[in-house]
């Protein structure tokens, strides 16, 4: 039993060393295009190296203290770019780096910003963004127009956040999630004020609305095609929505907003990809987006938006189909400020309306602290 555990540990260490080598190569590739030197290749990067074991001991002694910070998600033993054993500290927010020591007991500290680490095979953190919630519901969850079923398909997106319009609390999402059905076409109806907004959306209840719950009523505002925002809102039904505006895995947010900046770290909570983080990659963007006239319908119009926010979306990991309507906030733990309303994208880029443009169009304010 012991030898089996020992072999397993050795294999894990070898795999970890190989992975770390790959990560280090990948991370440093832009700045250090040269191949590793022979001397670097000769360094034993396994636990058999006494220097590595010594660093592991230091790491073990300090891990508990380091992880007392909720934005620290892990520690490991690694190597610096110049081949010295080091302690790796995995953090969720770039701001945490400034609070960490550069050395611990003389061992260099390597900081890596990462998404929250989760068990593979179990999406997200275990918090479901598609399940029917017990009311009052939190936002960042699946939802949509109750009748969004046409042409053999049903449609939906994300109930993004809570806003206040003249004292009335409303769920904020996209025009194309709540009210894009503008032809009687495949379902003999168009979206109208007073129609129910459901949680979860039809796409998560096999297109059967009776398996979902009514949480709000649509206030049709027809932001598109005329305005420069893809937004809509729905008045909450008393008792059905958490009136603090709490968003799944984000919690409450700030009542104030913040403008986007290039490289700004952001996060969102959405129906499909759950809680994800990325960074702003472009500002003042002009983007053309084609819209359908109902679920799986024909093209209604192509809208050219200006002044939009672009966000990195490598392999669609930040935003994917069904996340539309998610609120993008700054990547801080407590009461983050809203940055934008996500509405479009591709497998490499995501697009958000600046939140102030959305709030201005709806004559609204964010519900928050």
């Amino acid at each position, binding site marked *: 039993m012991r030898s089996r555990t020992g072999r397993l540990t050795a294999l894990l260490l070898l795999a970890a060393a190989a992975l770390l080598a790959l990560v280090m190569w990948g991370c440093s590739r*832009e700045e250090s295009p040269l191949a590793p030197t022979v001397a670097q290749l000769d360094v034993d990067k396994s636990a058999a190296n006494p220097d590595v074991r010594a660093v592991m001991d230091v790491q073990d002694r300090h891990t508990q203290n380091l992880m007392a910070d909720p934005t620290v998600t892990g520690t490991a033993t690694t190597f610096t770019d110049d081949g010295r054993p080091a302690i790796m500290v995995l953090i969720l927010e770039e701001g945490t780096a400034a609070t960490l020591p550069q050395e611990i007991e003389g061992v260099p500290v390597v900081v890596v910003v990462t998404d929250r680490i989760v068990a593979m095979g179990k999406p997200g953190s275990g918090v479901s963004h598609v399940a029917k919630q017990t009311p009052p519901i939190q936002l960042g969850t699946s939802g*949509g127009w109750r009748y969004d079923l046409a042409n*053999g*398909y*049903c*449609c*939906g*997106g994300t109930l993004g956040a809570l806003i206040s319009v003249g004292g009335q609390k409303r769920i904020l999402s*996209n025009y*194309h*999630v709540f009210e*894009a059905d503008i032809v009687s076409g495949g379902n003999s109806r168009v979206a109208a004020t007073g129609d129910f907004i459901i949680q979860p959306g039809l*796409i998560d209840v096999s*297109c059967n609305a009776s398996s979902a719950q009514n949480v709000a009523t649509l206030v049709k505002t027809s932001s598109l095609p005329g305005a420069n925002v*893809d937004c809509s809102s729905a008045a909450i039904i008393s008792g059905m929505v958490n009136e603090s505006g709490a968003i799944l895995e984000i919690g409450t947010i700030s009542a104030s907003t913040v403008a986007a900046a*290039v*490289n700004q770290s952001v996060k969102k909570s959405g*129906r*499909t990809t759950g809680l994800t983080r990325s960074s702003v*990659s*472009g*500002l*003042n*963007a*002009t*983007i*053309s*987006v*084609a*819209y359908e006239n109902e*679920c*799986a319908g024909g093209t209604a119009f192509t809208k*050219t938006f*200006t002044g*939009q926010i*672009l966000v990195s979306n490598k392999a669609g990991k930040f*935003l*994917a*189909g*069904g*996340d*539309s*309507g998610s609120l993008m906030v700054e990547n801080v733990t407590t009461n983050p400020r809203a940055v934008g309303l*996500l*509405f*479009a*994208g*591709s*497998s*490499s*880029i*995501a*697009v958000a309306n600046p939140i102030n443009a959305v709030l201005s169009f709806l004559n609204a304010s964010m519900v928050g602290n």
Partner: protein
Amino acid sequence: MPKREAPRRAINDVMADHVQELMARDGVTGVAIGETADGNPCILILLRELTEAHRLALPDQLEGHPVCLFESGEIRPLGRQDE
């Protein structure tokens, strides 16, 4: 010695004057203010597919401001439909 035009106008103004012409080009999905690899502002042109023809046809600077190219794929609303 290579010469580069020094920018005389703000990058947002330059982009605004060129955005219509750029958006009209085949394969362009968007135009924005982005950042070069060395951290300087650039006029970012998004392309459905970034080809060698685009690299040759598109300018590498506009009025002294660098142009960055990015393959965006097709940008579409991110609602979801299921059967």
